[in-house]
């Protein structure tokens, strides 16, 4: 079972208590009624869906109920860091976390023969 560190409860809790809440650090346009449809679509619908390191919002919905931010590797599913909502985007500490993603089996199976 995946353990996720909640920055409000200050301990690791089971993934069963959490819900994913989309990409983090998306700023709502201040002049939202003035922007074009394309700009609105960019803000509202389009997400980067990056492979590897992503910044996401998570919610400890069956715990303290708080939203927080997490840096997660979408390939290895590893949580690299979590921090409180409202904080600026945190850089990963140099030790431990690697920017390189883990190769999946699907990605390498074609070359294996």
């Amino acid at each position, binding site marked *: *079972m995946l353990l996720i560190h909640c920055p*409000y*409860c*200050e*301990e690791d*809790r*089971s993934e*069963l*208590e959490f819900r994913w809440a989309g990409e983090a650090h998306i700023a709502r346009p201040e002049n939202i009624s003035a922007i074009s449809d394309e700009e609105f679509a960019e803000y509202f619908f389009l997400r980067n869906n990056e492979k590897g390191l992503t910044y996401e919002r998570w919610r400890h919905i*069956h*715990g*303290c*109920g*708080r939203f927080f931010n997490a840096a997660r590797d979408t390939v290895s599913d590893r949580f690299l860091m979590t921090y409180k909502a409202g904080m600026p985007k945190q850089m990963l500490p140099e030790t431990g976390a690697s920017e390189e993603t883990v190769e999946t089996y699907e990605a390498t199976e074609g070359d294996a023969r």
Partner: protein
Amino acid sequence: MADYGADLVNRTSPLSGFHGGSSTVRLEAAPPAERISLRARAEDVAALSSALGVDLPVRPKTSASANARSALWLGPDEWLVIAEENGGLMQAAKNSGALHSATDVSHRNTAILVSGPGAAAAINAGCPQDLSLKVFPVGACSRTVFGKVEIVLLRTGDEAFRMEVWRSFSDYAFGLLAEGAQDAAV
């Protein structure tokens, strides 16, 4: 006269008539209690604490008990306050004069008292939290999951827990606890 339909005069506990447990776990439906869901800012905690007669805890996973009332930390600005005897929680919160949001959830929740040497094992049948005394000491409380329902768990003794659960889920929670109790006795 024959018994027609619901008894509308006497209040019935959602868990009345439920039996379960094993040689190491005792399961009981808790007596009715008054409960409020309380939301408040950090600067209003002191006023609310003195009005309620129990100090609202500000550390995660902690609770406080005084004057037959318990205050359970659920989130940074959220508490569950339970009064087992002297009620009047809504009025007490109102008398504090502090800005807050209080909702009476006395009838939304019911509670199951789980005790005995196998109590933690029975709860762990459906709850992912570490219930060892080191990590979850007496007085610790947490909102968490139990099987597929949400609960609030409070440790009242070394081998005793109070499980707060929504009344419509209590049937399921009691049933899963009864199965956990059987497994804990094996």
